[in-house]
């Protein structure tokens, strides 16, 4: 029986419910509730997905014919740079932080984040640096145009000689995004370490929490290096130093090391939570426990550790000495081991399961399929003799779009559909979801598969015009890109109409196992409030008939009655 004076049978007055469509004004305020912040992140990130997508449409429109006819090559460089920057810093990082905000506290049973104000501050930095980045379209000389790498000496050119220029705004925005990410990382890691429900040891945490933890550790350990490198770039650009200027004794390759020391691990910051989403969703829709839970959990940190020592594979053709190339070729191949382990675990989970092919599962299966393909091209690129030929061609572009779009974005969509009922309290329309999946899969394949051939034939990336021999691959790719553009229509329709007037969602529509599914949909402001369940078994007990928490019946009833 209860030992505190608080009687959990007294259900408190329903709090303002974070996900409900009523009272939308709080999404525009400095709200400190992790679930409000999560939705703020996700919605604003999806807005920037549209912005970045629009830029991509212009790029693909330009590339549908060999000559540079649609936009001026200078403008093309700017669009190309901004496309990459918007997608990474305004779409992917924010949307994953949105997932972290929604999922980490609910999955570990915490009432909120460890530092709610810091959390809100981290979110509100997003519109600030988004505005700075967007403003760079309107300054004389246009936005930054040296690619998302921003390598000197290209990035240090400032032909108009103005103090405020596109590149300067770009560096400022990226630095602010870094500060926001660090605030986020401190919060997520502290929350995971200190605020887990009673009984939830590390090896009872859902894999999503493990992967988020591993990813945020990368942010803490690697992101400051880019911040340092970017500060030096800003000084070179604006304050007359010569850290990266050879004419003043500086070293441009030093910047490449700073950049990739973070930006390689950064791709794992993005993909690790997607591994988490796969690991959550496959067991639910195949009704089987996750295969090899402990190994999958630990592999996340193996990936974190290895991701910090492979960055030079982006610099095989930057005058890198041979011993260094060999060394980093080996470390890069090693990272395929923990990654491969995870892939086997998911296939093992699916094996002989009762597969239910609803939208989240379709996106996960499509994402897994694409990821295996991307892993193979990754290993090819890690091989120095191959990379020196296809480096800086469309083969690299194809490889990383296979991971970033065809795997990571697929995982993001899967996650949105899977947890949509939980955090909005409404069901989405399955038919629209399936149309979205089919269009996305076809569009993505048409868009990114042909680029491998273009790259193998030697088509250089980042150029507005190209040799007519590559035309056929580019035409197919552009058609794919436009299909992707169309695919956003069923998605947007589905999200808006379901959130506004979709059928009310029960607490656990997918019969999933996890603390978040023991909460009402949408969960009240403080989640379990003062009655946090005691975890007595590991996650993913599908078909095992073991309750997840003490007195499970009570929590299920409580969620239903709320």
């Amino acid at each position, binding site marked *: *029986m*209860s030992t*505190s004076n*608080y009687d*959990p*049978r*007294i*259900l*408190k007055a*329903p709090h303002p419910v974070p996900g409900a469509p009523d009272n939308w004004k709080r999404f525009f305020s400095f709200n400190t509730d992790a679930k409000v912040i999560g939705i703020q992140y996700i919605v604003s990130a999806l807005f920037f997905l549209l912005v970045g997508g629009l830029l991509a449409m212009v790029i693909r429109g330009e590339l549908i014919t060999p000559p540079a006819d649609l936009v001026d090559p200078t403008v093309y460089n700017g669009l190309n740079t901004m496309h990459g920057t918007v997608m990474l810093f305004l779409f992917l990082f924010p949307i994953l932080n949105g997932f972290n905000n929604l999922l980490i506290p609910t999955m570990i*049973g*915490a009432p909120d984040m*460890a*530092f709610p104000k*810091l959390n809100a501050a981290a979110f509100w930095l997003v519109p600030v640096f988004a505005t700075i980045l967007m403003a760079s379209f309107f300054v004389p000389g246009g936005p930054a145009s040296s690619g998302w790498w921003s390598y000197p000496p290209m990035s240090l050119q400032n032909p108009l000689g103005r103090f405020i220029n596109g590149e300067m705004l770009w560096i400022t925005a990226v630095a602010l995004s870094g500060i926001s990410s*660090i605030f986020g*990382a*401190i*919060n997520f*890691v*502290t929350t995971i*370490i*200190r*605020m*887990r*429900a*009673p*009984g939830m040891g590390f090896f009872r945490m859902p894999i999503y929490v493990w992967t988020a933890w591993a990813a945020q550790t990368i942010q*803490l*350990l*690697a*992101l*400051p*290096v880019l*911040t*340092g*490198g970017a500060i*030096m770039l800003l*000084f070179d650009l604006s*304050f*007359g*130093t*010569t*850290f990266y200027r050879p004419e003043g*004794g*500086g*070293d441009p390759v*030093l910047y490449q090391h*700073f950049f990739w020391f973070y930006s390689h691990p950064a791709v794992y910051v993005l993909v690790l939570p997607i591994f988490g989403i796969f690991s959550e969703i496959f067991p639910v829709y195949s009704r089987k426990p996750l295969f090899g839970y402990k190994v999958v959990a630990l592999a996340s940190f193996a990936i974190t550790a290895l991701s910090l020592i492979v960055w030079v594979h982006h610099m095989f053709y930057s005058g890198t000495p041979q011993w260094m190339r060999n060394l980093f070729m080996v470390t890069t191949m090693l990272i395929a081991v923990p990654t491969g382990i995870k892939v086997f675990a998911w296939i093992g989970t699916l094996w002989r399961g009762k597969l239910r092919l609803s939208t989240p599962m379709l996106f996960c299966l499509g994402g897994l399929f694409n990821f295996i393909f991307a892993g193979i091209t990754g290993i090819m690129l890690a091989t120095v003799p191959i990379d020196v030929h296809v480096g800086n061609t469309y083969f690299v572009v194809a490889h990383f779009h296979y991971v970033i779009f065809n795997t990571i974005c697929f995982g993001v969509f899967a996650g949105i559909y899977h947890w949509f009922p939980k955090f909005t309290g409404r069901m989405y329309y399955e038919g629209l979801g399936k149309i979205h999946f089919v269009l996305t899969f076809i569009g993505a394949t048409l868009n990114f598969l042909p680029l491998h051939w273009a790259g193998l034939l030697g088509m250089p990336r980042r150029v507005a015009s190209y040799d007519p021999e590559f035309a056929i691959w580019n035409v197919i790719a552009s058609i794919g890109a436009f299909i992707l553009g169309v695919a956003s229509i069923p998605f947007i329709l589905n999200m808006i109409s379901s959130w506004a007037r979709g059928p009310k969602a029960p607490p656990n529509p997918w019969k999933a196992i996890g603390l978040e599914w023991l909460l009402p949909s949408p969960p009240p402001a403080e989640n379990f409030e*003062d*009655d*946090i*369940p*005691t975890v007595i078994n590991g996650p993913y007990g599908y078909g095992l008939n073991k309750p997840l928490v*003490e*007195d499970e019946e*009570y929590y299920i*009833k*409580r969620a239903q*009655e709320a």
Partner: protein
Amino acid sequence: MTITNPEIPLNHTPGHIKHDGHNLTGFIIFLCSESIIFLAFFTGYAVLKLTSPEWLPQGVNGLELKMPLINTIVLVSSSFVAYIAERYLHKSNLWGFRIAWLLTMIMGSYFVYGQYIEWSELAFGLDSGVFGGTFYLLTGFHGLHVITGILLMGLMLVRSFLPGNYEKGEMGVTSVSLFWHFVDVIWIILFILIYIWQ
């Protein structure tokens, strides 16, 4: 409105998670991350110094050691004074704490003053090649941390006058003094890299 639901039987002890008291954990994580920026700067410094074809700008023979050495001694000893202040607070001796804490702040300010004097007497500037650039970047970035530390200590000092403020623990003071030791250790590395390794 409360809904009482006596039909649901209760067979468990309700769990509870503390909302606050995580500041020290968060702060330590922050310091780890912050130290990586310095690590990046130090690495950049070492790489540039070892590989640059023209390290010292023309007419510069190196750095004067005396003034920075005095500064180093003051900063390192201030860490011990901060520790003493913490001990006083631990024993609830508020005035002992305030005096030692103020002394730490004064020593920190002396360091900033010394740095200022040194800067104003140097023959090279931020734009004097990689040598000038790295020198001002490293000492300047560190100096910003010292100033931040002094301001934070001032805040803690003011808070000590609010009645009953430190009765439930002194998380803020612990964090700030941790920050101060951090700034101190960074300085020692910086001193070795810039002044001793010439």
